């Protein structure tokens, strides 16, 4: 837990420093006025890429959890495209994504609470819908 907190601190500081916690800067990128965001995303991915490639060779498992070091691999299906497109609409409209929204709160941007309320509402809507669907798929269809 303390380590996750420290990791979060560095992560959040980086989001603040890179100005990604400001929707205006993200929108400037999406509108092709400032391509700096590419440095943030790829800079971060290069750092994690090195760790994800190196750690499994150095150690078998993580010291604090005993979990094996793996890569972040998720199965591909059409949800990745559908969800990605919906996220894209939201990101393009608001200029904010989840991690940057938390960081935005940290830099004093109270207005971002609108986006956070929206994100929780959106997560709830899809979770409610998918939970209901999963339940109706596992129980045999009733009289209706």
């Amino acid at each position, binding site marked *: 837990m303390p380590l996750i907190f420290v990791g979060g601190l560095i992560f959040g500081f980086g989001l603040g420093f890179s100005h990604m916690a400001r929707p205006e800067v993200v929108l400037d990128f999406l509108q092709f006025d400032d391509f700096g965001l590419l440095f943030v995303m790829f800079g971060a991915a290069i750092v994690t890429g090195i760790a994800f490639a190196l750690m499994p060779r150095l150690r078998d498992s993580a010291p604090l959890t005993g979990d094996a070091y793996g890569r972040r691999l998720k199965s591909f299906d059409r949800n990745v495209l559908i969800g990605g497109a919906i996220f894209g609409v939201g990101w393009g409209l608001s200029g904010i994504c989840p991690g940057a929204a938390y960081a935005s709160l940290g830099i004093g941007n109270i*207005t971002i609470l609108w986006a956070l309320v929206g994100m929780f509402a959106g997560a709830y809507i899809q979770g409610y819908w998918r939970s209901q669907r999963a339940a109706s798929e596992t129980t045999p269809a009733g009289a209706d």
Partner: protein
Amino acid sequence: MFTELVPLSLTAELFPNGVFRYAVGGLLVGLGAVVIYMGTGISAGASTFLESTLSYVSDQSRFQQYRSSRDWRIVFTLGIILGAAVYAVIWQGGAWTTDVQPWRLLVGGIFVGIGTRIGKGCTSGHGVCGVGSASKTSIVGVMTFLAVAIVTAQLVQLMGVSP
């Protein structure tokens, strides 16, 4: 002389604020994820927090599946908020608030909440950890939300909505 000036002015046009803040910030974002990964083996993502936190207040199966990770995800998010606050206190010189209109933040946020959870990740899960893992799913996911976001932002701008 002329050949030296062209790339310089192009750089200034593409990066009107320079690249230092973006490159250093990006490296730190990656470092934060790596610290967690090295200690725990976890590939951290920010958007699962939305669902895992809902498990405290909702019994829906979709949220309850994240029960085991919901505590550390709150710690991670508090870390992000405080880390950004440290930046704000030291470099920003106080609070900063956005001029982007609340309806854009609210409606956009709803789409972000739905989309990141259906699409299996956001800019940190897919963009930072997934791309760092050379995951094809994540690379396709990033290309999808990046392309749609660019089109959306440009359309909104064309319609005269600003900021």
